[in-house]
């Protein structure tokens, strides 16, 4: 939080706020947030990434925010990119801005990158746009998508929603960012789960796009 705070408040044409979402976590998140008086949502049980994110989106929607940036609290995401992402959203009138690790940098050939390429290919086939970093968890969403997230439980902060949004006419742009190794917590995508994840995303992007309601 100390790390994030210099980037909050007024910066150029934006005012940055934050909201911590504690998705029923049993570590000290709740206590830390309470003791420091942070602005946070406290879900009573663990409901998963999508649901936790949607809670935040409902808050943003009812409080009239124009943009929301999905920002991991495990140290992976670097707050210095918040402003460039917001500026890009405004300048390009974009609905989604992806903080992308691979706009300029080349991908290494690891299992994770093969998965990333696979999803990028799926998105390219179905939505006709090349996304360099579909699995980036650092994304900005505009007002239109904030509303969709607040109202539709099928909107998840995942690559399939990006593909779906493009097909619905959303403008998606990418801004180069760098990411660190996480300093706390473990990815919810363990090795065994990532195969399932890829299959779910692949199916969702390829087939369920057409039956999803807009």
């Amino acid at each position, binding site marked *: 939080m100390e790390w994030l705070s210099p980037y909050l408040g007024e910066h150029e044409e934006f005012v940055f706020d934050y909201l911590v979402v504690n998705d029923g976590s049993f570590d000290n998140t709740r206590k830390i947030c309470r003791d420091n008086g942070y602005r946070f949502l406290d879900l009573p049980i663990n*409901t*998963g990434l999508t*649901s936790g994110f949607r809670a935040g989106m409902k808050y943003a929607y009812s409080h009239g925010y124009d943009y929301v940036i999905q920002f991991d609290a495990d140290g992976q995401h670097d707050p210095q990119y918040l402003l460039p992402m917001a500026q890009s959203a405004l300048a390009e009138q974009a609905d989604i801005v992806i903080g992308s690790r691979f706009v300029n940098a080349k991908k290494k050939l690891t299992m994770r990158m093969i998965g990333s390429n696979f999803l990028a290919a799926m998105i390219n086939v179905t939505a006709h746009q090349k996304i360099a970093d579909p699995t980036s968890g650092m994304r900005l969403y505009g007002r239109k998508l904030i509303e969709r997230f607040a109202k539709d*439980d099928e909107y998840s902060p995942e690559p399939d929603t990006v593909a779906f949004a493009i097909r619905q006419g959303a403008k998606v742009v990418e801004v180069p960012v760098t990411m660190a190794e996480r300093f706390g917590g473990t990815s919810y995508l363990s090795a065994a789960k990532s195969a399932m994840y890829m299959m779910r995303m692949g199916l969702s992007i390829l087939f369920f796009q057409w039956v999803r309601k807009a």
Partner: protein
Amino acid sequence: MSLSLRLVLILGSALLLVYTFHKVKKAHVQITDTVFWIVVAVFLVLIAIFPQIVYFFSKLLQVQSPANLVFAFIIAILLVRSFLSSMRISQLSNRVNELSQEVALREKELRDQINRNQGK
């Protein structure tokens, strides 16, 4: 269908019925949810007592062994049932998620209100 298969069907159905009633009595399951199991049990007893039903349909569908038709039918029913259950679980988990989001949003509002009042 052999006599032993028919006896197993009757015995199994009887056990299923007893177990279902037992669970309803202990309120482990809602009565509406037991309708399916009772119908299945009654149906199995029926074909055990009147195997002619199975013979008729296995001839019609050109299944060599009537017992196979019974198995295939049970598997089909269970698949449908399992899909319906999976659908129900999805709906329930959506509702639980919505509820916890709602709880979190309201708790936040309450906390903000208390803080504002203390501030005055």
